[in-house]
Each structure stands twice: as structure tokens, then as C-alpha cells.
């Protein structure tokens, strides 16, 4: 896990989440802009998976539980596709809000992954 990349990831996920929640409440159905933002969140998660596989080989290992870290990462990576799929099946504004909720959930989970990797106080 790379510190600055994780920060970027949380910021992008929050921005995407805010965008989708606002556009959804404004009555927009899922569109290229909201789906695109969610895809970007997913792309960063896939990059994070690659980084997290490679990092330990370079001596950058998690300070906390590796298992817990991976449970978070894999679950987080499943959320954006599920939310996009939901929006494809049900085309109304609430599906756009759900895209945003998924992005915010990813932001929280990446934050937790950051804690597990870097600051293990317990």
C-alpha cells in the first residue's frame, strides 16, 4: 500500500460519491458521468490490488492483519460493479444515489485499509 495513492483514492471516492448523491437527488438517472466516476473508483481499487500484491515483495508489509486487509479490499472492489449493475436494472434517480453510497462506502473501507496497513495501534 502506498500512502499518497491511498489518499488520492479516498479523495476520488468521496468526490465520486458526492457527485452521484447530488445528481441523484437532483433527479438524474445513472448516466455516463456518474457511472464513469464509479468506474474510476473501481479502477483505482484494481490498481490498489496490484499495489498490495507487489508491495510486500518490496518489503512494504502491512503492520496489521493481512487477512483483514484483503477482506476489506476484495469486498470494496465488489461494491462499484454491484452498484452500476443495480443502476442498469433499475433506471431511476435512486440508483444514482446508490452509486454515490457505494463510492462513500469504498472511501470508508479504503480509510480502514490504510489504518490496518500503516497504523496498527491495537
Amino acid at each position, binding site marked *: 500500500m502506498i500512502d499518497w495513492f491511498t489518499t488520492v483514492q479516498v479523495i476520488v471516492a468521496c468526490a465520486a460519491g458526492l457527485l452521484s448523491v447530488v445528481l441523484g437527488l437532483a*433527479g438524474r438517472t445513472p448516466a455516463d458521468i456518474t457511472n464513469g466516476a464509479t468506474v474510476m473508483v473501481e479502477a483505482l481499487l484494481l490498481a490498489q490490488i496490484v499495489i498490495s500484491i507487489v508491495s510486500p515483495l518490496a518489503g512494504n508489509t502491512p503492520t496489521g492483519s493481512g487477512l*483483514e486487509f484483503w477482506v476489506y479490499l476484495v469486498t470494496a472492489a465488489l*461494491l462499484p460493479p454491484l*452498484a452500476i449493475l443495480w443502476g442498469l436494472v*433499475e433506471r*431511476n434517480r*435512486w*440508483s444514482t444515489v446508490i452509486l454515490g*453510497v457505494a463510492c462513500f*462506502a469504498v472511501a470508508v473501507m479504503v480509510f480502514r485499509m490504510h489504518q490496518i496497513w500503516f497504523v496498527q495501534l491495537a
Partner: protein
Amino acid sequence: MTTTTPRRSGGLGRVLIAVYGLLALAATGRSVYQIFSEFDHAPLAYSLSALAGVVYIVATIALLAPGDTWYRVAWITISFELVGVLVVGLLSYLDPILFTEKAVWSFFGRGYGYVPLVLPILGMIWLYRHRPRVVEPVAANAEPAGTV
């Protein structure tokens, strides 16, 4: 007497269900991990988290499924969640050793952004507004669920 239960899974309810699903996933997944890895740290808190997770799963299904029975199940599970978070939240302030912050209900759900405290209340408001009504010729035009 015939009653009709308005669709609970439409419109804003979709968002509620999605958040319930997320919390069910988070609570169940995390507590299972905690029980297997560090059960001794806070056995009571982790057991309650697992119980909460399972009840969240049932609540999510009950909100999704149509019909009067599921409506009752939704009320029971969501009430259970509210009582749980209030009781455990209070107890965890009285005895912080017994309840770790990493559990769902401890400190009124602080470790989960207070979502476990807010969600049952929103769920109850939602259920109340979509309660079953007696079918009468005039009452047939109950507010349509899922209006965009």
C-alpha cells in the same frame, strides 16, 4: 378484512435497503473475522456484532420482500436493532472494558459512523409511512411507491 401493503422497496426505500445491505455485509463480515481472530478480546461485543449482522440481513430481506408478514418481520428486526444499539451503547459507556469500539453496537455505533443508531430510526419512519392500509374503494389511490 383485506389489507394492502404498499411496496416498500420502491424509490427512496431502495437507498435505505442498499445501506441496510451494506451494514449487514460490514457487520457480519467483520464480526466473523473478529470471532475467528481475536474472540478473547471482547467475546460479548463480538458475539453481539455477529447477532446484529444476521438480524441486519433479515431486516434487509424483510424490507425488500412484499407482503404483510415481511412487513411485521421488518418491524421486529428493526426494533431489535434499535433496542440493541441503545442498550449496548449505554452499557459500553458504563463498562468500556466489556465492549470494544470495534463492535457494531458499542458506543451507539461510533465505530460505524453512528449508522447503526440512525438507520433503525429511518427504517421505522419508512415503515410507518408505508404501513398496510385497509382496502376501500376510495383508499385505493394510496400514494404510489417508487414515484420518481
